[in-house]
């Protein structure tokens, strides 16, 4: 099966490509980039991408798919459907399921469920410690053999520096990056929002920015001590981003990601006690948004990750301090990046592709992803930088509805998502762009 995506504008930072070209795909692999006027092979289906951006499939390296154990919030199938609807061809599933993904059996289960769903590719992240309790190391080697791409105790960050040192040393042996949710729990003290003006006004317990910054500094020091690959998740503070900047200058293998809600909303959004503004790390004040934008601009920040965290409406209907942390994000990530980063001139489209595809693939050492070079997986994300659209959470592919961005309008968004050469997501408005192709859209 051959597919030619023609007349589009190809952006692939991995190859230094930023030009109008056709992209030819065959049997799930990229054949290569052709000129507009190059001859079209016979029996090729055509995708007219005139005016559209053709990019390597986006990779969201930080999502919670809830399966096994919390299928009432999300399943791997529903999460994968939300992923492709949001333009992501690969997502990395955090291990905080029930049971925790701390052994090869759970890892294999996640991979099998994703294959069954057949939409986005799901790469599991294993736990750092057994049951993410921070006491004994999890079986990283066996999980790596089964398919994990990194280790993390995400929501239950490794509490002591000593344990983290061991984890980094051990993970280094398997060339696995250690992803840390930076939060010193003794400083966060059960805070439910950012500590600052609005936590005082709302009378809600705050967690100081220092809780993230202290842990980020610790991890950078330990990255130097161990030489491990360390990736800091969803950074939300100036100090943590600066810690990464300094570590990078020293040549350490430290990378980091930010989440779209952290550059889109401030803690003022918690006014009214809407639990869809509750997440961890929390929404912070404008100064921290400025720090994130700086990091995105100067290259300190490597990746955009949604921290997609579905929760059932009943759970989010609890009192603010009782409701669980997190929001769904897969379907709004690119809209928020286009609207708040690209359209405002903070970053270029090329840098967006770097943040969403090139760099996640590099950090996780995914050899055949994050690029449109010949032989790579035919994972492609097609964007229309000019389309305007409005996010309607009631039509989300996710099982959960916990988004603070319902009703937000965006300029620029995802038109189509292609996974291993199959069009798994295509906006109805663009269906006429495709000729001769059997479109296998996401179910439901």
């Amino acid at each position: 099966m051959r597919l030619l995506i023609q007349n589009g504008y190809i952006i692939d930072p991995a190859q230094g490509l930023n030009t109008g070209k056709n992209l030819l795909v065959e049997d799930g692999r990229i054949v290569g980039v052709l000129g507009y006027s190059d001859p079209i092979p016979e029996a090729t289906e055509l995708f007219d991408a005139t005016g559209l951006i053709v990019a390597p499939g986006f990779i969201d390296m930080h999502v919670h798919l809830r399966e096994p154990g919390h299928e009432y919030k999300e399943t791997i199938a529903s999460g994968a459907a939300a992923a492709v609807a949001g333009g992501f061809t690969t997502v990395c599933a955090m291990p905080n399921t029930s049971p925790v993904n701390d052994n090869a059996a759970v890892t294999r289960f996640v991979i099998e469920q994703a294959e069954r769903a057949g939409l986005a590719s799901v790469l599991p992240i294993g736990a750092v410690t057994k049951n993410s309790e921070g006491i004994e190391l999890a079986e990283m080697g066996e999980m790596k053999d089964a398919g994990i791409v990194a280790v993390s105790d995400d929501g239950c960050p490794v509490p002591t520096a000593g344990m983290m040192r061991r984890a980094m040393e051990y993970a280094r042996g398997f060339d696995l990056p250690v992803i840390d949710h930076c939060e010193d729990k003794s400083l966060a003290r059960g805070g439910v929002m950012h500590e600052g003006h609005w936590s005082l006004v709302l009378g809600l317990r705050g967690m100081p920015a220092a809780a993230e910054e202290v842990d980020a500094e610790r991890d950078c020091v330990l990255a130097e001590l161990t030489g491990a690959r360390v990736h800091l998740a969803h950074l939300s503070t100036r100090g943590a981003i600066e810690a990464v900047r300094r570590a990078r200058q020293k040549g350490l293998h430290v990378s980091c990601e930010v989440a779209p809600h952290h550059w889109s909303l401030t803690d003022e959004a918690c006014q009214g006690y809407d639990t869809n503004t509750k997440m961890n790390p929390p929404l912070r004040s404008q100064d921290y948004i400025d720090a994130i934008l700086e990091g995105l601009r100067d290259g300190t920040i490597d990746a955009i990750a949604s921290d997609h965290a579905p929760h059932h409406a009943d759970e989010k209907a609890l009192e603010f301090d009782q409701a669980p942390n997190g929001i769904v994000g897969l379907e709004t990530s690119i809209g928020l990046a286009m609207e708040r980063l690209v359209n405002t001139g903070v970053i270029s489209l090329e840098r967006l592709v770097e943040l969403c595809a090139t760099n996640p693939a590099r950090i996780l050492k995914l050899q055949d992803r994050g690029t449109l070079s010949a032989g790579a997986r035919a994972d492609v994300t097609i964007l229309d930088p000019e389309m305007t659209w409005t996010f309607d959470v009631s039509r989300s592919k996710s099982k959960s509805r916990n988004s603070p961005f319902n009703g937000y309008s965006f300029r620029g968004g995802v038109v189509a998502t292609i996974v291993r050469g199959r069009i798994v997501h295509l906006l109805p408005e663009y269906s006429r762009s495709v000729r001769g192709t059997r479109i296998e859209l996401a179910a439901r």
Partner: protein
Amino acid sequence: MKHLLGIRELSADQIVHLLDTAETFRDISKREIKKVPALRGRTVINLFFEASTRTRTSFEIAAKRLSADAVNISVSTSSVSKGETLLDTARNLQAMAPDCIVIRHQSAGAPYHLTRVCDAAIVNAGDGAHEHPTQALLDALTIREHKGGIDGLKVAIIGDILHSRVARSNIYLLSKLGATVSVAGPGTLVPPEFAELIEQGVRVEQRIEDAIVDSDVVMILRMQRERQTDAFFPSMREYAVHYGLHLNHLNLAATDAIVMHPGPMNRGIEISSEIADGGRSLILDQVTNGVAVRMAVLYLLAGAGKDGQEVSRDVNVVAESDETSRSVGGVRGRTRKPRRGTRN
């Protein structure tokens, strides 16, 4: 005003209207027949998720003096440990068509939650560390009564500011009416960010002496014992020495300064008994005014007042048509007895 959720969102005019209304209601509690028919046929539910004697009783008395049917519900467990969620509880109560739900809850913002599922007027009787609007109103009524007004006064609030909904509501109210507020207490309980809580600014002092100097009103907050186990301060003894209000502190304040405490007091901890029982203490006046303020709030939110009807007509009608008061009060003519002294 459909609900009373906090002072922060009220205008100075709305606050003054509430206080003026409360003043007209204050006299009712001084009559022999302490009842008017203003809320006859209305239902007020007091939904208390936190232990409270003073506030719950005060709301109940206020409702009854207005002839409302008052129902008290005390829920000792939060929604997480108990089967029913707050919203389900609220929906069930709403199904019984109350006119007003007074809620106290340990979670900040819980009253806001109720407004999403209830048609009844919601009154915040204290939510977590957020607000306690009727406490601030009764404090203001007490200050107005004794100082003649609030504009231009210097008020010091001493104690656990961080966790205090009373402090927040008072800071908003007093500054909206033109007072300047300073706060002081242990560094762990008085974050410097309080300085910018409001546009006018709050003076944040480390030593309570610096906050009290020249102040017209000294408000003392209750110190909760669990703050010690949470390591906010080392011992009650040290707290009493460094942050408790003693007679010598009062020498720093204005000569006619008054002392207030929202109760319940820890005598000998945050306030010495000499002060609590002394001539400058208005602690019991606060309690008296609490009933008047809550009557005003219930009247304006659940009664004829919500349609903008004048207060005086309703209030001046003696409750003779009310069965309860007739059986209690007995002789009709005595309801219009001249007022007794204005202070007790």
